[in-house]
């Protein structure tokens, strides 16, 4: 599966969602990062490689402002979980260095599995501000 990544001078990274890969909208200029949809790529490394790379470039900027990360995935598989953990650890590192980071974990109402996963990921975030937000059901199952 091919995804098209548009990367304009590191201002943003936009990858449209497919049936099995998430939508990525990283608005680096405003420090607003967002992932939507579902994630169970046939090749996790191929999908997340460019995402990590763009994110690393953004986080390496010493003059960077506050970051808001909205995790709105409805489902992700275990290989994607590892990739997400990587992303959150990168955010934790810059937060530890003093850059304000807020991670909002969005959960559809009654989705206890996703809520529990949020708690699993939040467990060792000490400097990133973690918040859980409930969304109304009605997205695609």
């Amino acid at each position: 599966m091919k995804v098209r990544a548009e990367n304009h001078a590191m201002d943003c990274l936009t990858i449209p969602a497919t049936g099995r890969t998430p939508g990525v909208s990283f608005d680096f200029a405003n420090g607003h990062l967002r992932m939507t949809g579902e994630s169970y790529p046939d090749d996790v490394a191929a999908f997340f490689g460019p995402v990590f790379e763009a994110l690393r470039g953004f986080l390496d900027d010493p003059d960077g402002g506050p970051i808001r990360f909205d995790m709105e995935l409805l489902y992700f598989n275990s290989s994607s979980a590892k990739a997400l953990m990587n992303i959150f650890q990168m955010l934790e590192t810059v937060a530890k260095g003093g850059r304000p980071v807020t991670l909002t974990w969005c959960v559809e109402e009654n989705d206890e599995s996703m809520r529990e996963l949020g708690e699993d990921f939040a467990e060792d975030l000490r400097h990133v501000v973690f918040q859980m937000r409930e969304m109304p059901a009605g997205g695609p199952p």
Partner: protein
Amino acid sequence: MLAQQYASIKRDLDDKGIVFSFSGYLSEGILYSLGEALREKLALEAADGPTIRRVFSVFVEQMQNIIRYSAEKLSGTAGRAVELSAGMVTIGMERGKVFIVCGNTVRNSEVPRLKERLDHLKSLDRDGIKTYYREQLREEPDDSSRGATLGLIEIARRASDPIDYDFNAMDADRSFFCLKVSV
């Protein structure tokens, strides 16, 4: 004769409550298509989003285990790189619950380690599984597993009954491995 033979296979599947079954070479493409059909079927039965995703999650991890670890693989190039893994997947309904049974060939040398992992998972209660998941989420995958442990924990976590597994020796080198999960 032809119809009789296949009707008997079909009847066997129906009697076991099996709604979907696939045996043969599996690929990521089949995972995707079968997964879509499974979700549509569950949605028609008015299952809610979180329930559908719980079943779907077990299905994805089971399928990806076969695709990655089946000892019976075909690979080559047919215009592009092709890798196919033999196995079978059946999905059915039993006493109001969905069950997924996956089967594939494994090397006998891998059996003890797989057994150990599955027995360990079976011995844990809900909190134990949760703690184990948190630990493994932060671990680097060990050499040969390519993340199998987290996938198996995810399966055990979404299961409503303890997972059930079995091995059937085929010859000196290989066994048939089966994993049944009810959600």
